């Protein structure tokens, strides 16, 4: 019984982690940017969905759509307002662009977090779930919302896989991650490729944020831990490797669930961090990363 419960709960959490981390790793793979405002964008999506529901009295579907749209806009704004100006700045030496993008997106994330706290307070907000009720899977009572979360996450990841591998746009994105100069030589504008990637990222982070808001609830305090967890999953899987982060998300998700059930919920993040440290020592490029 406990085993089944851990399997089910772990799957939902892992799928959510996977969705959150996929967009993050996609941006790194294509444009070499680690977006540290990731957690803020996820929380923004959840809070927008919550506000649409409780302030504007929109239906749960409309609320969820508003949440995802907000994240999409936030992601594109992040790219044009923060990332692109830093990358194009002539005052910042080339080898230091990375740290400036990191610091810039981190500050941007703090700004979003503070604005959320200012307008919507620090209180935890739970988005009304789209599916309600409880179902019993082989004797384990599971909220339908949890199953919904897992299904949506898997579907979106599948869709993303199809988009990247089966469509023309996806192939350009893939090519840009391998050789940006080659793509420009073929007549593609790199900026528009990046906009596509950031849009995909925005939608993924938005869906993950809204689902998280329905599943566990969010507050402006979740910004840091969310960025950190996406970060550690992506590092564990290997920076830039989407399949690596999927595996890592499930490893981290199940490790946390196991610890929470078998040891204590207070220690849930520790084994994953220990594993991360061990991986950094033995194989710094992560499970499937390239150097």
């Amino acid at each position, binding site marked *: 019984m406990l085993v089944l419960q851990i399997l089910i709960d772990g799957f939902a959490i892992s799928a959510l982690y996977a969705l959150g981390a996929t967009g993050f790793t996609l941006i790194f793979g294509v444009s070499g940017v*680690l977006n540290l405002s990731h957690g803020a964008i996820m929380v923004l999506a959840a809070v927008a969905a919550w506000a649409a529901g409780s302030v504007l009295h929109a239906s749960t579907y409309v609320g969820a759509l508003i949440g995802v749209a907000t994240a999409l806009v936030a992601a594109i704004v992040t790219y044009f307002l*923060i990332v692109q*100006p*830093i990358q194009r*700045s002539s*005052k*910042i030496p080339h*080898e*230091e662009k*990375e*740290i*400036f993008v*990191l*610091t*810039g997106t*981190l*500050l*941007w994330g*703090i*700004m979003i977090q*503070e*604005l959320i*706290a*200012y307008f919507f307070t620090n209180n935890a907000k739970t988005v009304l779930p789209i599916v309600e009720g409880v179902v019993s899977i082989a004797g384990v009572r599971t909220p339908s919302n949890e199953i919904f979360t897992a299904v949506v996450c898997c579907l979106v990841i599948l869709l993303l896989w199809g988009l990247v591998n089966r469509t023309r746009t996806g192939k350009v994105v893939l090519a840009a991650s391998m050789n940006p100069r080659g793509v420009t030589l073929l007549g593609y504008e790199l900026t528009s490729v990046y906009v596509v990637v950031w849009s995909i990222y925005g939608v993924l982070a938005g869906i993950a944020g809204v689902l998280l808001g329905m599943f566990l609830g969010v507050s402006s305090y979740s910004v*840091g831990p969310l960025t*950190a967890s996406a*970060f*550690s999953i992506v*590092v564990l899987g290997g*920076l830039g490797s989407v399949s690596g982060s999927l595996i890592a998300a499930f490893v981290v998700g199940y490790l946390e669930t196991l610890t929470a059930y078998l040891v204590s919920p*207070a*220690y849930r*993040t*520790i084994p994953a*961090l*220990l594993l*991360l*440290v061990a991986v*950094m*020592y033995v194989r*710094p*490029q992560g499970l499937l990363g390239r150097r």
Partner: protein
Amino acid sequence: MAGLFKARLLWIGLVVVILAATLPLYVSGYVLGLLTVAYYFGVFAMAWDLLFGFAGEVNFGPTFLIGVGAYTAGILDNQYGISVYLCIVAGAAAAVVAGLVLALPALRVRGPYFGLTTLVAVLMLQNFIVVFADLTGGEIGLTIPDVISIDAGTNYWIALGFMALSAVILYGLSQSPVGLILQASGQDPVQAGALGFNIVKHKLAAFVVSAFFSGLSGALLVFYFGTASVGTVVDVSVGVQVIVAAVLGGRRTVLGAALGAIFLIVAGEFLRPTGELATFIVSTVALLAIMFVPNGFLGAALSRVRS
């Protein structure tokens, strides 16, 4: 012109420190307390700048070193009642050891991976403090029975003297041949290695020096606060503040980092009436600064003098 400016810098610095030392004669204890904290933060930022600006390594976990120093000193005092000065020395030593443990494997990796490792170290430390709450006080914080002094003026002078001394050592180090080698290995490790310099050894030395000053300053800070908590010496946001201070003041200037830290702390205090928006305003200013004046206050001033 640049050489003249550097020689003059010493005199300017001396005058500023002497002027600052007279402050307790005519300002309130409130201002002194604020500046005391700002000076310790200045040391954090200078120690970070030595690592980033010169060795070219982005340490996302300055608070790992600070926190280890602060908590070691605090726990020794709280649990065993050892004298304050021994605790502070032990804190600095523990930070150096922690720095070595962190740097040995972390320096094998380059670029973002190094930053990630250091960030993970902070998260680990944070978790351990919360888990071993019996020893560390957990999320509430650790009470420290002893203080260095209860006099605001004395505390202020200790902080000022400590910052000035650290500034002289760190700045001197950055201008020495060792500093040049560090800078070279930060900018082009392959060429610096080809010139026969042991890059890893130099970077490791930079990390140890940075850890020593971070830990020492962290230990002094908890004895000033009388408490050590995750929110004041370990949290990632504290580390971000240190990094922002260093970048704001000017990378590769060491002294600019201290100016940036003092500016940040004082600005945060001035913005207190704006309530919850204070952090927002400080982050916005810092973001605008790194985007439009990426060389920082002192960096921009220096390049103006040079041209």
